[in-house]
């Protein structure tokens, strides 16, 4: 055990001494999440909207003015027929249609409630979400001010509908996605590189000729990355939560446990890569091509899996990040418990067994 601890200590020293490693370890997650976060939550500006006003009274006009005088929206046209909505969205310039119900002001002032329908083009899910939020906010402020003046309680019920993408896939996607990507990259790439480095420098021979058992060497190489990856996972969730208000609706403990499981999977992939890569460069190459690109392209992180051709959907099923993304989305966004994600968890678990088995097999062949 003392041998092992000494070995792990040295592993941490390697990491802390190397500025580049530290940058990758801690700089990358922060940079990525801020980058993606701000790209995704880019501010609305000059969004073209259409209005279908069936009431045409002073209230609807005031609301229209409020919306159009905000710097977010530009009134593209007013509609006179509900059937135009479909074609106007298909054109693609107009991203939002606001529909006031007939007798809007009368209902609002007499019955205290009126309906407003907000249709958004959700083929760009993130923008659509923002559009609806901004519009609703403007309406809320308006009604709040009006209530103060008129001193009667009233409410406008905005009914939002996402056109073309009802489930709003893509929103909040970046936190789970980045987590899946960073963890797999750091754990798998860094472990495989650091093991390949020992091979390349010849120190692996020395270690193997020492009383350290191979399993101790492997665990010693891996332990620091478990710790650091876990810190990364926590910081990504915290960043997402505090900077971008991505909720953690479900159990934090479950989320952490699943993250650790995924980290182990990434490490076992890293181990496997290190058994086939002879040099650090090769390890990095394999990691980047076999992990980073598929994670970005095939895991559903950026491109919806449902839109992929069948064959790519099959490939996607082989990508560990895909399942992890499902798991954390389920926990973070929907607040689901373990019952809902046991299948995905099992898949991750089987993948771990698969890669560890493969690594052991390769390792034995290498030692003859």
């Amino acid at each position, binding site marked *: 055990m003392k041998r092992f601890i000494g*070995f792990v200590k040295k592993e941490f020293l390697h990491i802390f001494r190397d500025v580049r490693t530290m940058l990758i370890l801690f700089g990358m997650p922060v940079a990525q999440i801020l980058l993606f976060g701000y790209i995704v939550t880019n501010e609305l500006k000059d969004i073209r909207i259409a209005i279908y006003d069936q009431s045409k009274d002073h209230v609807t006009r005031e609301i229209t003015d409020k919306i159009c005088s905000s710097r977010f929206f530009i009134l593209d046209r007013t509609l006179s027929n509900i059937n135009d909505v479909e074609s106007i969205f298909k054109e693609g310039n107009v991203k939002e249609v606001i529909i006031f119900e007939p007798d809007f002001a009368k209902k609002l002032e007499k019955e205290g409630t009126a309906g407003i329908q907000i249709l958004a083009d959700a083929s760009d899910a993130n923008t659509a979400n923002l559009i609806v939020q901004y519009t609703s906010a403007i309406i809320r402020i308006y009604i709040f001010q009006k209530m103060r003046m008129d001193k009667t309680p009233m409410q406008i019920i905005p009914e939002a509908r996402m056109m073309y993408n009802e489930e709003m896939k893509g929103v909040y996607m970046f936190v789970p996605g980045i987590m899946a990507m960073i963890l797999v990259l750091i754990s798998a790439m860094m472990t495989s590189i650091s093991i390949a480095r020992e091979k390349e420098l010849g120190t692996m021979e020395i270690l193997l000729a020492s009383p350290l058992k191979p399993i101790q060497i492997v665990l010693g190489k891996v332990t620091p990355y478990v710790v650091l990856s876990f810190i990364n996972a926590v910081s990504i969730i915290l960043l997402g939560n505090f900077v971008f208000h991505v909720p953690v609706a479900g159990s934090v403990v479950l989320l952490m446990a699943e993250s650790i499981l995924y980290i182990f999977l990434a490490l076992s992939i890293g181990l496997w890569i290190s058994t086939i890569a002879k040099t650090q460069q090769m390890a990095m190459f394999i990691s980047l091509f076999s992990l980073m690109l598929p994670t970005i392209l095939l895991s559903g992180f950026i491109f919806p899996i449902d839109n992929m051709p069948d064959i790519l959907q099959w490939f996607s099923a082989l990508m560990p990040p895909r399942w992890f993304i499902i798991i954390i989305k389920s926990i973070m966004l929907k607040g689901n418990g373990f019952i809902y994600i046991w299948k995905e968890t099992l898949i991750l678990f089987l993948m771990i067994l698969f890669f560890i088995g493969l690594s052991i097999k390769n390792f034995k062949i290498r030692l003859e």
Partner: protein
Amino acid sequence: MQQAEQIVVIEAKNLTKKFGNFVANDDLTFQVLSGEIFGFLGANGAGKTTTMRILCGLSTPTSGEISVAGYDVYTETEKIKRNIGYMSQKFSLYEDITMYENIRLFGGIYGLSRRTIRRRADELMEKLELKHARNMLISSFPLGWKQKLAFSIAIIHDPKLVFLDEPTSGVDPITRRQFWDLIYEASFNGITIFVTTHYMDEAEYCDRVSIMVDGRIEALDTPRKLKLRYDAEDMNEVFLKIARA
């Protein structure tokens, strides 16, 4: 070096190692005695490294009876590894950590107590005149220092036997000479040295030398007797005569 009692440290009988159809080590039989400096020579690809890896417990032989430091290479590699030191061809300390951290790491791996490690580290730095460099990264060391340090660390746990795989390749003649002084000192302290080398002048420094050609040991004796037998002026000539035969 003549010893009163000759304890056998390495005993190899009919050591054979095959990789598929290729025979890397063909029926090697030899003994290495305690305290001896045993030179293991051969051209590139003659099979030296394969033998050394087997003796270090890094690889299992195809057949043969082999024991190292009294332990069987098939079943007791753990114990062998505790009792040997190993310095590989490639330079083998960690470049991005300091000298003291390297010493502490390998001391720890070989199970030395913290106090022993501290004491040995002080002795070692004193001997190599490297006290000032205690907290310097190995990467800033000149190659000569590194090599000497690597050797000292390879024997930090006072092994019965140390394997040196071409330890002086790429080192200037003066440093090589200094390096051999260290080897003599270790040998004097009772550590058996098993060394492979390319340099035939170094072969002269060994107590006994084995010369390997195509996986077989073609000659094994003291340098003096080998030179007599092959009617050669130096080991270089001996080597060429054997290799060309």
